[in-house]
């Protein structure tokens, strides 16, 4: 039995990509030391010219990644904090994402941005605890949130191979997960959801580390209700077919989503269900509050994130 951790799986995906393609390179802060795990040992193995320690100039090095991508490279950018995505929003949403269309298809920007440790890290407070995946999905940048080590490996591999910019969120709440890997690690295609547990009464669409919460609650309520746990894996482009197929089986929807509620991922899932699904009961969202800023004190931090009790309530509400 090989227990593979989530962090190690990402590290291995990056190592495999660096080994397979000389165009792959890495920019980020402290990537030589591998502080975030993602790049551990890779500078030693592939050299400081391919795994590049950058100054604290996120905007310029993200843009440099775009320039390198335009010149044929496949840069991977590591950002140490989820909110650094706000800092480079211009570079990602206004430059990387738009180059292909604006140039009439002359240019491609195969750039992968990875945030190892998104969402709350417990005790890092307001500016280090965001989970802003919905922003990228809204803008139209491919947005990935792997929940398991094998998905982390597979989605990061596919992101690096993709010809468009991709942002991958590795939730802090999943980084420590270990998985018994039985089959060889392999790419996971973008845009394909995964059913973690089949069920017939309620679809719980759950994102990232919350998949584990969904599975635990599903198990706990197993005598009472049959819960299908669906993991979109790719938030954008979303596997609408999988969502609608699941709703076709269950007719009920709860979305479990660790981001702000208003116009978030859960809102989109409910909108799709409303437009295209045939629901037996009003759908429910379990999310952060509107406009959430996570306070420092642990009890307050936890109070603003979706929890198992809220999920139970939501499941029971749609079953009423």
């Amino acid at each position, binding site marked *: 039995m090989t227990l593979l951790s989530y962090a190690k799986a990402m590290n291995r995906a990056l190592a495999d990509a660096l080994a397979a393609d000389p165009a792959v390179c890495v920019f980020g802060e402290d990537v030589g030391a591998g502080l975030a795990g993602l790049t551990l040992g890779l500078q030693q193995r592939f050299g400081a010219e391919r795994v590049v320690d950058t100054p604290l*100039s996120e905007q310029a*090095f993200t*843009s440099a990644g775009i320039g390198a991508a335009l010149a044929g490279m496949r840069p991977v950018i590591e950002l140490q904090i989820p909110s650094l995505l706000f800092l480079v929003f211009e570079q990602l949403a206004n430059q990387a994402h738009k180059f292909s269309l604006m140039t009439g298809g002359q240019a491609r920007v195969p750039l992968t941005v990875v945030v190892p440790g998104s969402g709350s890290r417990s005790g890092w407070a307001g500016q280090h605890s965001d989970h802003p995946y919905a922003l990228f999905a809204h803008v139209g940048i491919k947005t990935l949130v792997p929940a398991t080590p094998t998905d982390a490996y597979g989605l990061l591999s596919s992101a690096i191979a*993709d010809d468009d910019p991709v942002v991958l969120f590795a939730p802090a709440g999943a980084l420590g997960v270990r998985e018994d890997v039985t089959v060889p690690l392999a790419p996971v295609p973008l845009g394909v959801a995964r059913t973690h547990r089949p069920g017939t009464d309620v679809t719980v669409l759950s994102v990232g580390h919350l998949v584990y919460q969904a599975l635990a609650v599903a198990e706990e309520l197993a005598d009472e209700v049959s819960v299908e746990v669906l993991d979109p894996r790719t938030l954008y482009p979303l596997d609408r077919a999988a969502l609608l197929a699941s709703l076709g089986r269950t007719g009920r929807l709860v979305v479990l989503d660790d981001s702000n509620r208003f116009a978030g991922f859960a809102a989109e899932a409910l909108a799709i269900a409303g437009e295209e699904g045939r629901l037996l009961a009003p759908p429910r969202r379990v999310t952060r509050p509107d406009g959430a800023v996570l306070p420092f004190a642990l009890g307050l931090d936890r109070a603003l994130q979706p929890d198992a009790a809220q999920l139970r309530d939501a499941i029971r509400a749609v079953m009423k």
Partner: protein
Amino acid sequence: MSLPHLADRAGRYRAMRLIRSFEELALEWVRSGLIVGGTHPYIGQEAVAVGVCAALTADDQLTSTHRGHGHVLAKGADPGRLLAELAGRVDGLNRGRGGSMHAADFSLGILGANGIVGAGAPIAVGAAWAAQRQGRPRVVASFFGDGALNQGVLLEALNLASIWRAPVLFVCENNGYATTLPAGAAVGGSACGRAEAFGIPAETVDGMDVEAVRAAAQRLAERARAGGGPGFLECLTYRFEAHHTMERRFRLSYRTPQEVAAWRERDPLVSAAAALPPAEVASIDADVSQLLSLAAEFALASAEPDPATADDHLYASGLRPRSGAAL
């Protein structure tokens, strides 16, 4: 080998004349409505684009600005395809998707005009970094205005280029104004002082003198190509026209008529022409005029894109976005 069409004085004069006449034609097309949205005319600054590009090879690359027609033409883009782009036609450089502010020709190393001030500089640094890695003897020129000197990302880019010794030629076209704001009121210190503070050798040249620009650009480009790291060139220049064609609608007083007139006296085309036999100038002018007639014909003959293709090219991978219409 430097770009053949800019190899001698005649070629450089020709390129400047092409830019000038192209821009005059574009102004007409804006007035007549053939170009929608307007342009940022390059008129007056021709010596900068041509002088710098004369120091580049075909394999070299550049990033441009909102005021990009001059850079794009100087590097060798087809005027017919550029004009078609400005008119939003399918045969435009960007298939009508980019317009004035995003004109690009990747086959010629033109990585694009950019609608965001300062945004091209770090892209140039990344492209130059990649060239280093790939072992190509390539220089990337990055054009920007005096206004861009106050954009954080450009300042970050100067530092990155410096510590990476990236083969970038930073070209600051100091035309004295960012829209209505005088550079003197906006820029603490000096352009070259900033570059030097990041460890980048910097020179100021007369941006109305194409030969002076070329000579300085050549020095810095060759140094960069030889592995000596980035260079910074401040070109003192002036735009003869409005910031943007839309400005004509306003009564603005940020520049005195005297100031404009004084700079017009220093028209870079006039001095470049003076160095050539008058007959050669006349023949070049006639040539360019004919070239532009053909360009206009080409652009007008090109179709407008089919609205059904509006989101073509959104994703390089071929992903098609979901429509915005109701189901």
